[in-house]
């Protein structure tokens, strides 16, 4: 390792600068967002049925959909204005302050790394379940997933997201094929919703079950906000990011509704709530080997796409931390040939591998959700501060979201409900995580921050914020 020595502040633009490449278009943004999230339809969302019954899963699908629509709207506005790698991290740095930014970056890295871990475990377990061979463990498949995708990310962002676009599209189309091949317009032939979801079993735990279901309802959409990580690699961020994010959100709402409808009409909620492969099982239950195999492959592809996007996003967030010296600037290196944050990718690889080997799927998902919800809480406050410090008209925004402050208030309230839901299942874990963030914040505020240059952190060409 070489100590990162920089000679004063460089303001020259030309010269031997190595920066990330601006090569992506809106389709890549869509692929990054939907790619990360779509795996949630193949596993994870269905645990909300376990928490509160089949109807609860549908209710949270819609209500959490509202939460994420708010997230997407708010995020589009802020990020089309603060277009820098690190996404919400750069937003926090310009709007709230350095310590917040440090925490947000950690939320991002945790949420994405744990999501990547969940994807790898899911992929490994799916293959093992399919093989049904005695003595076959998931470890080799997990290792291959994480290492191959890290390699792909290492070699360049354009190829990474092209691959993501293709595999996400295939996985998505397979949900649509499944939906239309079970004749969704007639009940009774294949689908038996009214016999499986009856008034007696729709909400087996009553309304507290619905609230508890929020925890896994998050999984329908978790990660859509990751589109912002590509901000520095998109050709025209002010246009592509809102467009790609919104298109992604619409795609996901449709997929979530179709997934719930098919799965709830094919299996009893008690089974739906515990299976790791709701869509694959749905494929099996249709009795068609073609659909079964299609959904098996789609499950693998969705897991791959998600892990791929997560490596991309986690590395960008980690890279940004290094670039501002919040962490040693060693991490901020860009590969001179492939133009990727290669040291961050390599650094996070063994961490992901280690957790994939020791954690189980449920726990990894919970870690990811916890960090996600902490981040959404921040976003609702962030947008309020953004509008106050730079009112409309004071700076150029790529996109302005409507009905402010309603989305922020909705988002904040739903986050509180979700915290309560997490408390019902994983309260002690939430406390442990928060204590960790608290301690590391103290470390940053009182020690690490002394290595950070003050004025340089504010890189946007904006006027002075109001009230300062």
């Amino acid at each position, binding site marked *: 390792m070489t100590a990162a*020595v920089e000679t004063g502040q460089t303001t020259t633009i030309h010269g031997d600068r190595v920066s990330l490449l601006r090569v992506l278009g809106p389709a890549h943004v869509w692929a990054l967002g939907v790619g990360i999230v779509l795996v949630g339809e193949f596993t994870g969302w269905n645990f909300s049925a376990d928490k509160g019954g089949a109807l609860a899963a549908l209710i949270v699908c819609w209500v959490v959909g509202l939460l994420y629509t708010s997230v997407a709207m708010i995020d589009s506005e802020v990020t089309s204005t603060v277009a820098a790698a690190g996404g919400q991290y750069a937003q926090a740095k310009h709007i709230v302050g350095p310590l917040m930014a440090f925490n947000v970056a950690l939320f991002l890295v945790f949420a994405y790394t744990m999501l990547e871990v969940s994807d790898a475990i899911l992929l490994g377990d799916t293959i093992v379940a399919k093989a049904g061979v005695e003595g076959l463990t998931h470890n*080799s498949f997990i290792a291959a997933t994480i290492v191959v995708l890290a*390699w792909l990310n290492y070699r360049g962002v354009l190829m990474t997201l092209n691959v993501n676009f293709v595999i996400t599209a295939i996985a998505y189309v397979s949900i649509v094929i499944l939906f239309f091949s079970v004749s969704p317009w007639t009940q009774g032939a294949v689908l038996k919703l009214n016999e499986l979801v009856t008034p007696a079993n729709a909400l087996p735990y009553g309304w507290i079950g619905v609230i508890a279901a929020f925890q896994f309802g998050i999984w329908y959409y978790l990660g859509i906000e990751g589109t912002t990580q590509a901000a520095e690699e998109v050709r025209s961020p002010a246009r592509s990011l809102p467009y790609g994010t919104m298109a992604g959100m619409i795609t996901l709402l449709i997929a979530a509704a179709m997934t719930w409808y098919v799965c709830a009409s094919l299996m009893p909620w008690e089974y739906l709530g515990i299976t790791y492969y709701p869509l694959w099982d749905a494929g099996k239950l249709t009795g068609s080997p073609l659909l079964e195999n299609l959904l098996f492959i789609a499950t693998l592809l969705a897991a791959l796409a998600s892990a791929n996007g997560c490596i991309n996003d986690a590395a960008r967030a980690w890279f940004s931390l290094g670039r501002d010296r919040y962490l040693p600037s060693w991490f901020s290196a860009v590969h001179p040939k492939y133009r990727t944050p290669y040291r961050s990718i390599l650094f996070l690889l063994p961490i992901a591998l280690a957790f994939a080997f020791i954690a189980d799927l449920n726990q990894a998902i919970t870690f990811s959700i916890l960090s996600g919800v902490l981040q959404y809480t921040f976003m609702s406050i962030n947008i309020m501060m953004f509008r106050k410090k730079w009112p409309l008209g004071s700076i150029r925004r790529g996109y302005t979201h409507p009905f402010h402050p309603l989305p922020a208030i909705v988002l904040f309230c739903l986050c509180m409900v979700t915290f309560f839901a997490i408390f019902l299942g994983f309260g002690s874990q939430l406390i442990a995580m928060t204590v960790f963030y608290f301690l590391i914040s103290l470390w940053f505020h009182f020690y690490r921050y002394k290595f950070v240059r003050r004025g340089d952190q504010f890189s946007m060409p904006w006027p002075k914020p109001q009230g300062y």
Partner: protein
Amino acid sequence: MWMGLSYVCWAISAALAAWMLYDWFKVDTTYSEETLTSSREGELEAVSEKHRI
């Protein structure tokens, strides 16, 4: 068949990990640290800022 696939997966992982380590070493020894860590946030924005002042 599945067992074989499992071994292939280990082999691919090891090979790609080795290649990345090799490339990392090569890059770090070929280029100076200043060059590698020369990326700056908001570079494009910095250009417009310069023009305005």
